[in-house]
């Protein structure tokens, strides 16, 4: 007979969550390890590709390319900003590690977008989907990373690929949430107008909802990038390389110099990525008759060669009608 105390029933009555999880994990590890190993494959491929490209580019070429990119999407000031942050990265001697971290972040961003945007679209369309997915997203964001580091290692092993995996778990939620939000907050009259002109649900998504939600989705991308970067340090505990590894090693050896350099590298990288994605988000929000081929380095080249076709397309508004309104 079980002796249950009424005042403190939890002495005897407990749900053995811990044991269940352990049993299930053991079962999974023993029977499905190969399945999980196989799941590494796509991440491996993308990571190899990105890392291969980034580490093959010499620092100077890398800086020049990113300056051109920054200039194109957000003007000359952004170009200068890119040059400064990346040069500093090189000067403090963490270029190589930065590229490793960057490729980890880009890979996890890639998977976050591939998974997160469709999830966001679905949860914007179906209320039930949103209700189901919300507690899962809460758990992904609040569950301490250390809790799932261990099972991930048991199932996937250690190294960069499981590192990307835990990063995806941590960084995915804001993208899903903001995609959902971005689509839901589109003014009802725009949706109604699109329906009145005979949009199919697919046309509605591609021609109206996604373009109008782009600024919000870009904010989600920005958040995902930032969270990825902050996760990189924790992920270095399962032997993920890059700047996080520097920080972890510095702390382990009480080498404050090493830790600070790694941390500084992370901050510089974060600022660089943050500004760049923010500028891209603003661009998608921007209005005006100016086209992409009229600004930045491409616009510069176009105007140099006097490509007139580009100019003809854009008719500047004339002040002729101003008197009417």
């Amino acid at each position, binding site marked *: 007979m079980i002796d249950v105390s009424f005042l403190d029933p939890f002495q005897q009555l407990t749900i053995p969550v811990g044991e269940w999880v352990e049993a299930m994990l053991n079962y999974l590890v023993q029977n499905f390890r190969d399945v999980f190993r196989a799941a590494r494959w796509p991440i491996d491929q993308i990571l190899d590709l990105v890392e291969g490209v980034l580490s093959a580019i010499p620092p100077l070429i890398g800086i020049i390319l990113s300056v051109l990119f920054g200039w194109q999407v957000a003007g000359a000031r952004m170009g200068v900003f890119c040059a400064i942050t990346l040069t500093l990265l090189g000067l403090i001697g963490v270029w190589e590690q930065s590229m490793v971290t960057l490729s980890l972040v880009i890979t996890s961003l890639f998977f976050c977008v591939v998974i997160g945007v469709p999830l966001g679209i679905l949860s914007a369309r179906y209320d039930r989907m949103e209700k189901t997915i919300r507690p899962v997203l809460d758990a992904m964001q609040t569950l301490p990373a250390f809790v799932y580091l261990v099972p991930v290692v048991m199932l996937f092993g250690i190294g960069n690929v499981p590192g990307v995996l835990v990063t995806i778990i941590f960084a995915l939620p804001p993208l899903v949430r903001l995609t959902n939000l971005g689509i839901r907050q589109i003014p009802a009259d725009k949706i*109604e107008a699109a329906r*009145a*002109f005979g949009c199919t649900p697919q046309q509605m998504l591609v021609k109206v909802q996604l373009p109008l939600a782009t600024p919000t989705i870009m904010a989600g991308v920005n958040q995902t990038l930032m969270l990825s970067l902050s996760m990189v340090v924790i992920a270095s505990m399962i032997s993920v390389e890059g700047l996080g590894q520097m920080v972890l090693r510095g702390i382990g050896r009480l080498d404050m110099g090493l830790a600070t350099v790694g941390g500084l590298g992370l901050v510089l990288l974060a600022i660089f990525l943050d500004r760049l994605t923010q500028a891209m988000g603003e661009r998608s929000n921007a*209005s005006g008759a100016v086209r992409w081929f009229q600004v930045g380095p491409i616009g510069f080249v176009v105007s140099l060669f006097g490509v007139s076709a580009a100019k003809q397309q854009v008719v500047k508004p004339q002040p002729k009608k101003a008197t*009417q309104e």
Partner: protein
Amino acid sequence: MSNTQEILEVNNVFKVFGSAPDKAMEMLRNGASKEHVLSETGQNVGVFDASFSVKRGEIFVIMGLSGSGKSTLVRLLNRLIEPSSGSIKLKGQTITNLADKDLLNVRRNDMSMVFQSFALMPHMSVIDNAAFGLEISGVDKKTRHERAIEALEQVGLGSYAYSRPDQLSGGMQQRVGLARALANDPTILLMDEAFSALDPLIRYEMQGELIRLQKEQERTIVFISHDLDEAIRIGDRIAIMEGGRIVQIGTPEEIMNNPADDYVASFFKGVDTTKTIKVKDIAQTSALTVAVNQHQAIDFSNNPNEFVYLLDSNNKFVGVAPSTVNGDLSLESLMANRITPQFSVNGSTSLKESISIVSESPYPVPVLDDKGGYQGTLSKEYVLSLLANN
């Protein structure tokens, strides 16, 4: 294209909002009132037994206060809101039975809508906005841009094709909204309080623009409005709605002269009727007229009229002469003694616009149609008595 052909027929359409519309419909069929249904079942009746038809080439205005169900009614026409029961026919095709795919085609080809809030796409240039409906229908880029430019030129925005909607003023944005609807070349144009968000001057200008477009292109338009002046100005016929019910349908004059109930009458209380009454409807036909090509003796004995109105064989007005021309009442002397300068008013002008001419003219002013045909006269005394009774 006959002017009396009925293009849109709406028969006994109901719309019930709520979770259990069937039960509410059952009650309505058994003659329950809207208020009764709401208190019994909690279901809100949006449109109550609406029936009307729209003729080809007319502007049909649905007018009512906010909450009267007029915006719901117009959305039932293209099934942005599904009707609870009733049938809607466009060109003989029953809209209410259409499958989704056919409904999309109707929305793409036959019905275009203009919205109170403009509802332009902010991420598209003006030309892409105007071409939006065509893009949705799968028209290739070159063709749809040509047609969009055409539509933009019709509304006077041709030179703004590559601007963004947010660079334009409200009136111009609604012109884009109009161009977007016109670019599809729809059978029928649905305008939901299209000008209500504009300031009065621009609104007046846009109404004129719409009347012009309608005349040029013989458009059939269903126009929703809460503004009586607007309804009277642009509407060929007006349907007045109250509490989801259509209470009266008719031309502005018919409704004004014969309001169906106190509610309709109260609408017209503040209206300056001199603005809405057309002079052809009140012209007196008692004046003496003479056809100038008739070679017969004119008998002016017992003639109480001071003036004689001279008409040609096509009933066209050629002049006025005093009926006591030195005793010589031959046609020649009447023609020779025509009074100058000549005054006349067009039959389709409003009484208000005609008052100054009537007061200036030394004789009762002849009322003429567009081709100069004689329709009657307006004397100062008569106009004054009308105004006094008004």
